[in-house]
């Protein structure tokens, strides 16, 4: 959610039950403004909160001029001092996929994982148990990246693409209509498109290239991994992800207000197929 409309955004996203306490809100408002100045971001988004056993991580993301360029992620433990996280790599993802359980809340905490590795010693090849240390910071980076790639949502029409390349915020976006707001096809993943090129030419002919340049949520696997609800007496549409429980996307139809926030334990819900 945009740091500029933080208070309204938190109010609208509160249907999921988790929000921020007043002191955190106050500290966020001031500190995010400073972050925007220091890092020269175009927009700063408050991404959410990952609940750890000992402490919680507050995550913010900075967006540059091109909205779809990789965003910079910062974390803080007290909403005042922010530290930049390294960008996520494939190796990090494979490394941290073995770690299970809750986050600790301490960025320097190390998870231990024993692995069997083949060790070559001259001509002999034998397997040795190696204890691999994985830092919590790495895990944090890769989890945030996975969540972003999987479930960060933006409504159709909020961004538009210019023929020169960069993606801009659409200042004339006035919100989706009610009938559109209930359909999953009016929401896109806020990331580089992956499935778009697989569409048939017939489907592509109906798309508007300036608006439909991202994957829509309609074809997400498993089907039904999004819960679409109307709250506040039909005045707010809330999308909740079931794959990463804790991600809430809200949008007030016919207004400019939209945003998403993640407040959760940072664990994927692998039991989803059983639960639907």
């Amino acid at each position, binding site marked *: 959610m945009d740091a500029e409309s933080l208070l309204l955004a938190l109010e609208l996203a509160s249907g999921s039950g988790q929000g921020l306490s007043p002191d955190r809100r106050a500290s966020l408002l001031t500190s995010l403004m400073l972050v925007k100045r220091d890092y020269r971001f175009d927009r700063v988004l408050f991404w959410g909160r990952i609940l750890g*056993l000992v402490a919680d991580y507050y995550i913010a993301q900075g967006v540059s001029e091109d909205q779809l360029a990789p965003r910079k992620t910062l974390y803080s433990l007290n909403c005042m001092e922010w530290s930049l996280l390294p960008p996520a790599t494939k190796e990090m993802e494979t490394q941290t996929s073995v770690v299970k359980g809750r986050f600790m809340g301490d960025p320097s905490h190390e998870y231990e994982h024993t692995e069997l590795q083949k060790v070559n010693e001259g001509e002999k090849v034998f397997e040795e148990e190696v204890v691999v240390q994985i830092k919590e910071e790495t895990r944090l980076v890769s989890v945030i990246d996975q969540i972003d790639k999987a479930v960060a949502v933006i409504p159709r029409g909020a961004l538009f693409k210019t023929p020169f390349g960069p993606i801009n915020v659409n200042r004339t976006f006035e919100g989706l209509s009610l009938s559109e707001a209930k359909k999953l096809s009016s929401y896109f993943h806020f990331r580089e498109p992956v499935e778009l090129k697989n569409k048939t030419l017939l489907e592509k002919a109906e798309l508007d290239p300036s608006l439909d340049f991202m994957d829509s949520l309609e074809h997400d696997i498993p089907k039904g991994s999004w819960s679409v609800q109307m709250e506040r007496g039909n005045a707010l549409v809330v999308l909740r992800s079931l794959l990463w429980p804790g991600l809430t996307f809200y949008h007030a139809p016919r207004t400019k207000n939209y945003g998403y926030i993640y407040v959760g334990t940072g664990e994927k819900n692998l039991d989803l197929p059983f639960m639907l």
Partner: protein
Amino acid sequence: MDNKYKVITAKVSDRAEYEHLANLLTKILNQRPEDPLFLLESLNRTTQWEWFHPKLDTLRDDPEMQPTYEMAERQKALFGRSGSGEGEQEMEEETAETAVPNIMEKAFYFEQAGVGLSSDESFRVFMALKQLVEQQPIHTCRFWGKILGLSRSYLVAEVEFREGEEEAEGEEVEEMTEGGEGMEAHGEEEGDEDEDQATDVIPKPTWKPPPVIPKEDSRTGTNRYLYFVCNEPGRPWMRLPHVTPIQIVQARKIRKFFTGYLDAPVIIISYPPFPGNEANYLRAQIARISAATHISPLGFYQFGEEEGDEEEEGGAGRDSYEENPDFEGIPVLELVDSMANWVHHTQHILPQVTDGRKEERLRVGEQSEDVNADFHESGACRPSSEPWFKLMANVEGESQRHPCQGPSGLMPLRTGEIMHMAPWTARLSCTLSPQYSVAVVRSNLWPGAYAYASGKKFENIYIGWGHKYSPENFNPSLPAPIQHEYPSGPDTIEMSDPTVEEEQALKAAQEQALAAAEEEEEDEEEDEDEDQDD
């Protein structure tokens, strides 16, 4: 102007741009401003805006917004007062004690912890609870929390009816099911008789369904409180049925999202099949969450004093707890430091469901206090002697006292690790101002369960999906082993059915025999006729 228009249409190929330009030029042609080139830029912006923002019709209501308006009307009714024009008398009545709790105060404290619905939503919940209290004979009422669902969510209220006002709905349903069982038994007997008369006696199955363990009485154990749910403030409140032991056992084995419709035939696809629909599953999860996560500061509740031995059966002392008027509050820092200052004030649910009596003695429909519906959640300490709560190995009549009982008899929270983590996380709501902050406790086993305590006040709430946390993947139960086939004995031998060729051969042989018999008859008749003729 027209020439320029033609030039532009010739060059433009993109559909959206073309339409935009067409709109823009139509606007210019309609309005005929004096200096169009100067105004082109702003007209461009206006046309763009209109593209995204269709005009509203002033005469008719927008049909799309119909459900929104309906909901708003319904919520407006919530805010209306019942019976107008009584003025002062009404105010006096309302300021007297009502069963409706002070939701706004609790919402404020939870907000300090970063939990809860927004303040206007909390106020709507408050009005909805007020409506519930007016409609039903309620003694105490509490906002239990919110359970999220796929299409709709549930707001749950925990109520206790006034003495003697227990509605007969639940009982009627029970009677019907008992009557139904009687009917079925009768039907079976009749069927058996018919079968006896048939030539082939179908062997009677030796399988008897396991005896139905009756649920706990209202106001005791897991059925102590009654739960009402509604989807949104303004919608009618619906009552949830009482929970039965078998439902809790099954609810532990499955993991399903709630859809938001109470009569959904949930869990058709689940194995083992859940005995009930979504309302029952919801109630079972509410029971589990309440048993596992309702905690209070030590000393807030005390047991009512009862004379007589606690080991006596039939003693209801342990069942009821009441507020301790001498409770002075525990300092917030102490509450956060150690979890020993918190206790569970609800009974726990045992993992096994038994009835300690021998099967012969158990009759359907009997509900005495000796019947054991034992409950206990695996993560908690074992409760002490209770006519209701006996350990599985116990013979009835024996009672045990567990050493780790708190002084008031309430169970302290379990320390140590479950699933490699502490089951509770306690924190101050605001580290910057510790003198005014609130102690907040968060459950790690049931994500979404929170409790706060400050001074003499405390409260529990649950907002979440309604599932227990497990770091391991969910393993559904495997189907039951294949049952044995009926053994071949002297009475029943398994034979293979005759093949088509054999049947045809048999048929041909029969036809031949028939034809031969007919010929013989004809011959005889002819002979007879001949004889007669003669």
